[in-house]
């Protein structure tokens, strides 16, 4: 009997052995496929264009960790809609373009990245979710502080900063203007003392300070030199840095401007980007540091940062950096909410990308795309631990202004925000 049992057991063992062999050597992973590299997917249908855009966003958008948009739900909602554009033969090309524009707008409407701009080259359509949100806010005044004060604006709106020049500053003020910029518009910088005070005022319209200082108009160079020289003037009682209406620019200006106010490295926050193609693959947070400028010492007098709802990107980082200094007060309005640094996608495998490769011209080799998504490459977290992307950085003193409040009869102005800044500083 025992022999029979042993034989049976042996057979059972051999069967198990065979089963294990089969399991081990025939087991295999799921086939691991992935999307093409950005812009490489040749697309000939709306379904393909949609998938290319959705996948590129899924992979390279840096705010998924904090953005409330349910991107999977977006896929489920819009995939059938784009598929219908391919199938519905009753639609005209105009109605297809109109529908696809509205679908793309619907997909990105809730994104918190306030740099985000979706350009649909094929249909000549653009979407800025942050701009759309701002315009829905009745308190927000668009273009209140025009960024090119010395040239006429095509929309006929006001050149407010020019009034500051004539009505708030004393006669020793310096004005630097460079009209050679064709892409970003004219550059101006304004530095001087508030009338009858020792308060130093500095304003400029775009963060091109380093570029302008090194290769811009001589009037700009002289204005910047004047401003930096005054920082060591013992008579200065306080400083106002006005970045209202300033849409940002080069991050190298942080060390150039804020670096001239500090004597030791200033930790202002953290940045992180993507570390893989997964939606939540992130690098750790890297310290965001402003480095002092050689030859400058710490500015110890009180500072007021003036910023508003149109202060974006570097204008916000500058305001935040100033607020990281103990003697700074922020006056104005909550900023735009676009804090994430931008660079080319390849640097971090994140950020701006083309999508919907619709063909390459044989003669020129130029590849044409259905569209482009302009978006941050990194996420910024302020030193207080908050991510202000999509929310904006709030002021210490929230002073709202409107056109009627500012522009008074007889070509005069009253600027409640600047007035508040002046009141906060010793004269």
């Amino acid at each position, binding site marked *: 009997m025992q022999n029979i049992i042993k034989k049976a057991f042996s057979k059972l063992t051999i069967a198990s*052995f065979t089963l294990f062999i089969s*399991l081990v050597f025939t087991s295999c992973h799921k086939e691991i496929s*992935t999307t093409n590299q950005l812009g490489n997917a040749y697309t000939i249908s709306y379904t393909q264009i949609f998938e290319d855009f959705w996948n590129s966003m899924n992979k390279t958008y840096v705010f998924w960790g904090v953005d409330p948009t349910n991107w999977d739900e977006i896929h489920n909602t819009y995939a059938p809609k784009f598929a219908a554009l391919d199938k519905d033969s009753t639609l005209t090309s105009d109605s297809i373009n109109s529908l696809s524009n509205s679908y793309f707008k619907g997909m990105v409407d809730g994104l918190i990245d306030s740099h985000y701009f979706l350009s649909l080259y094929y249909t000549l359509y653009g979407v800025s979710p942050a701009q759309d949100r701002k315009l829905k806010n009745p308190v927000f005044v668009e273009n209140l502080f025009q960024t090119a004060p010395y040239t006429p604006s095509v929309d006929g709106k006001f050149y407010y900063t020019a009034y500051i020049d004539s009505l708030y500053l004393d006669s020793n003020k310096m004005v630097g203007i460079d009209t050679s910029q064709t892409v970003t518009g004219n550059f101006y910088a304004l530095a001087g003392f508030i009338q009858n005070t020792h308060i130093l005022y500095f304003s400029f319209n775009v963060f091109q300070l380093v570029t302008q200082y090194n290769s811009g108009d001589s009037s700009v160079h002289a204005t910047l030199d004047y401003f930096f020289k005054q920082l060591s003037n013992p008579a200065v009682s306080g400083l106002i840095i006005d970045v209202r209406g300033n849409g940002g620019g080069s*991050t190298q200006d942080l060390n150039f401007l804020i670096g001239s106010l500090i004597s030791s490295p200033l930790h202002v926050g953290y940045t992180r*980007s993507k570390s*893989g193609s997964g939606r939540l693959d992130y690098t750790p947070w890297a310290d965001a540091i402003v480095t002092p400028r050689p030859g400058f010492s710490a500015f110890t007098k009180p500072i007021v940062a003036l910023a508003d709802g149109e202060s974006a990107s570097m204008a916000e980082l500058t305001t935040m950096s100033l607020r990281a200094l103990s003697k700074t007060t922020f006056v104005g309005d909550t900023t735009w909410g676009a804090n994430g640094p931008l660079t080319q996608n*390849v640097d971090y495998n994140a950020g701006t990308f083309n999508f919907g490769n619709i063909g390459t011209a044989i003669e020129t080799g130029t590849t044409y795309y259905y569209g482009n998504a302009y978006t941050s490459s*990194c996420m910024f977290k302020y030193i207080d631990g908050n991510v202000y992307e999509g929310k904006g950085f709030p002021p210490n003193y929230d002073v709202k202004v409107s056109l009627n409040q500012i522009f008074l009869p007889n070509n005069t102005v009253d600027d409640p925000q600047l007035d508040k800044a002046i009141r906060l500083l010793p004269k």
Partner: protein
Amino acid sequence: MIIKRKLLLFTAILVLTSLSYLANAQFYVGAEVGGNENYLITNVSNLISTEYVPINGFNIGVPVEYKVNDWFSLKSTPNFIQKNYQLQRTGFYQGVYQESKNGYLQIPVSAQFSFGGRALKGYLNLGGYGAYWASSHIKGAFANPLNYPAYGTSNTAYYSVTVFDYETPYYYDEKYQFNSTKDNRFEFGVYAGLGISYQVTKNYKVFTEFKYYDALTDQQKNYELEQVPRYNETGSISIGFLYQLKTKYNKFKNHRFKNHTLQVNN
């Protein structure tokens, strides 16, 4: 009725077999250490100048062997095993990397088939394992987008070769913070091992074994559409020893043998 009778017979055979084998079984316990190389099986071809490469780790375990007969054992080696890998960029972005050192508490269970002589034996293990991703440490570098050299100085070399000739690197070496939405900390897979053992004394044997662990579960939870899975695939070489414990069954067997001998002598 017939089914009941068959069931009864089957149960009786099973119990008798178990008792028979238990009475003859030997129980070993020991220790082992080893080194390994882990591959993260995934696809990053959609990322520019980016690749995963394997890096070495170690494993330490407590093998437990239940020897049923000369050629068949059941074996388990609860162990701590590192499953490390590195994500790195190439070309101009050389120097950007993230090394991940992942510690798993792992329990493999296998059937061991032995062959060879009385002292020197070869064996094959086939089985499966379950593991818990207990810890992770990351170390690496990437270009810091907001940490430029002081104005007037520059990172830029005359002839810039890599990204760090332009940008300030951010170096990190820190504990990885698990993400409960993304990280799947339970892993299951299959396991195969090929080894040799040598019976040094009656109670001790030493062994060396090559083991191959192949995860069948994704390292990530299913948290996004179009997800690209990631699987660990680990090869290790271990050395160790096993000590034969005197179980009550062995004692019982010895006792019976003694009694039987005495009876013969009588």
